[in-house]
């Protein structure tokens, strides 16, 4: 058990290292110069003043140092929890900007990922042996899962937002409001949350339902199901066993899909101008904000790694075969 988790942690550590390095490289090798755009924004016409400003900012962000030193400094700062200062909303620290956006992204991601997984599995298992459902609702699942996230998001925003007018199409809350812990604000928050949530939930739901349906059919045809049926066990018991075994690949699937789901959520946020990490990334790119981009990516990488690690643990709990493999099989 300890060796298993030790190995897992090592792999996660390596992944983290590589991801952070790439993360550091990408903005730096992007075309464009953030300092000159900052200087240009101030509108200083005097070349001497502009030059002074350039030197000041270059020095402030550490761009005057050689690349390798910037890299080492970057790691050093990272371990102190310092992601640098945002260029876009100078001089707010990146950590602060990200922490302001994270609750929105998590509030969107966690319910949509978990709910779509649970509901999809339940529905797929239910549809597996009912011809009518299998022939009517499951094709809808195929259409849903084949849909790009942003396209469904645009459709929902147009249909339920613009045409029907039931839901707002942009923002995390109304512009007229200030964030506070009042019922009014929370309701408003939920109202804005529905459409982005629905678009993420629906696309993922179709995939899980189809996967589960196929797995259940496979498990019900398997040898242990046939054996139980031959011994006259009731369908209830057979289905319970089949479900339990069919869920295992779905858990693996969840781990594999996590990255895709995060990307989907980011794009969806941009469609709805939802103030989460996705919108932040867009802003960071538009403003050549190295530090913000780096920080956001780092946060996403961390999130995906942690989620995968949790799934690893869950898998060990639910599948005895992984445990048996760790202890070594008895003769």
């Amino acid at each position, binding site marked *: 058990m300890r060796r298993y988790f030790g190995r897992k942690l090592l792999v996660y550590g390596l992944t983290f290292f590589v991801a952070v390095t790439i993360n550091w490289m990408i903005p730096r090798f992007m075309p464009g110069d953030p300092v000159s755009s900052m200087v240009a924004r101030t509108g200083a016409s005097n070349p001497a003043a502009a030059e002074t400003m350039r030197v000041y900012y270059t020095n402030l962000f550490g761009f005057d140092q050689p690349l390798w030193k910037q890299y080492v400094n970057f790691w050093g700062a990272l371990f102190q929890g310092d992601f640098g200062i945002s260029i876009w909303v100078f001089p707010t620290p990146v950590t602060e900007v990200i922490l302001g956006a994270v609750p929105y992204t998590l509030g969107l991601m966690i319910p949509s990922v978990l709910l779509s997984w649970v509901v999809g599995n339940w529905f797929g298992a239910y549809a597996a042996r009912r011809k009518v459902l299998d022939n009517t609702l499951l094709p809808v699942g195929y259409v849903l899962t084949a849909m790009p996230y942003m396209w469904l998001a645009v459709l929902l925003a147009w249909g339920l937002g613009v045409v029907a007018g039931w839901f707002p199409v942009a923002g995390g809350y109304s512009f007229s409001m200030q964030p506070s812990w009042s019922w009014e604000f929370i309701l408003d928050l939920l109202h804005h949350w529905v459409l982005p949530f629905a678009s993420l939930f629906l696309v993922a739901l179709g995939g899980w339902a189809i996967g589960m349906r196929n797995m259940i059919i496979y498990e019900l045809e398997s040898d242990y199901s046939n054996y139980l049926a031959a011994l006259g066990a009731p369908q*209830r018991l057979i289905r319970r066993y089949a479900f*339990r*075994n069919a869920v295992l690949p779905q858990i693996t699937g969840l781990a594999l899909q996590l990255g895709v789901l995060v990307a989907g959520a980011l794009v969806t946020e941009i469609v709805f101008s939802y103030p989460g990490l996705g919108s932040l990334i867009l802003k960071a790119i538009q403003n050549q904000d190295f530090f913000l981009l780096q920080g956001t990516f780092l946060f996403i990488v961390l999130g995906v790694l942690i989620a995968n690690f949790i799934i690893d643990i869950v898998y060990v709990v639910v599948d005895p075969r992984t445990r048996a493999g760790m202890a070594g099989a008895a003769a």
Partner: protein
Amino acid sequence: MSLQVNDLRVYYRTLKGDVKALDGVSFSMEDGEILGLAGESGCGKTTLGKSLIRMDGRMRHMGGTVELDGRELPIGDDRRMNDFRFREVSLIPQYSMSAMNPTRKIGRMVRELLRSRGATLDLDELESRLSLVELPHAVLDRYPIELSGGMKQRMVMVISTLLDPSLLIADEVTSALDVSTQKAVARALIGFRDAGFVKSMIFVTHDLALTSHIADTIMVMYAGKLAEKAPATAIVKKPRHPYTKLLLDSLPEVGVRYTEKRLAGIAGSPPSLLDPPAGCRFRSRCPIAGEECVQEPPMAEIEPNHFVACWKA
């Protein structure tokens, strides 16, 4: 009379038509009898075994009756058949290696299975039966993956016979095992019969040599029909049906070097069961076939308990 099968017909529904896998099979078994059911692939022996306990979705009961201990088995009715399964008729499947749910500890699975059938688990009885097949009691606390192939096979044997069924169908139970394990399994099956866990047993196999060691009676099938049924020794020593003779000739014998003498084998292949020929179905491969073989030969008792379906026997 423990089992009485009368003119049983079971066809497979396919798009091309009915495959007549069992076409009028009649036989009976005594209490305590072990019946070896032999024949080549596709002769209908597995279909017969399945028909007696659980038909799969493509099989159709087209006629004939099966009586067990004086009660008729509703073999075509999946739901009504449930009352008989496990309690009256039980099965050791061909796929014992994968017959147990991989994600349940064996003991818990057995308990859940028994509870679902309205029976309670007698742990002492279960453990004594485990000892009988030389399995440690600790297997109940293990997952199937932690057992070797032979252990899984024996575990399934114990589970299948827990409710003391009247008839046990052992479907190709030895085909996946090596020779030394085969013998142990065969001995355990005889032990189960002698201990009264099962009254009678149908041992489906293509291995005539092994069958002759454990079966009291051997029944040879060909192309969906019975060819010959006789006490084991009679089948081995004095086979009457040409197919049985050829089948025995194609077995290697101990002490004979086959570098000089080639094993005979049987030329040709069995007829299609989609549209079987009229008359004797072995006719086209039979070395002694004659004119009368165009007529279907009836099953005749040529000696006490020795039945043959052949005009020339």
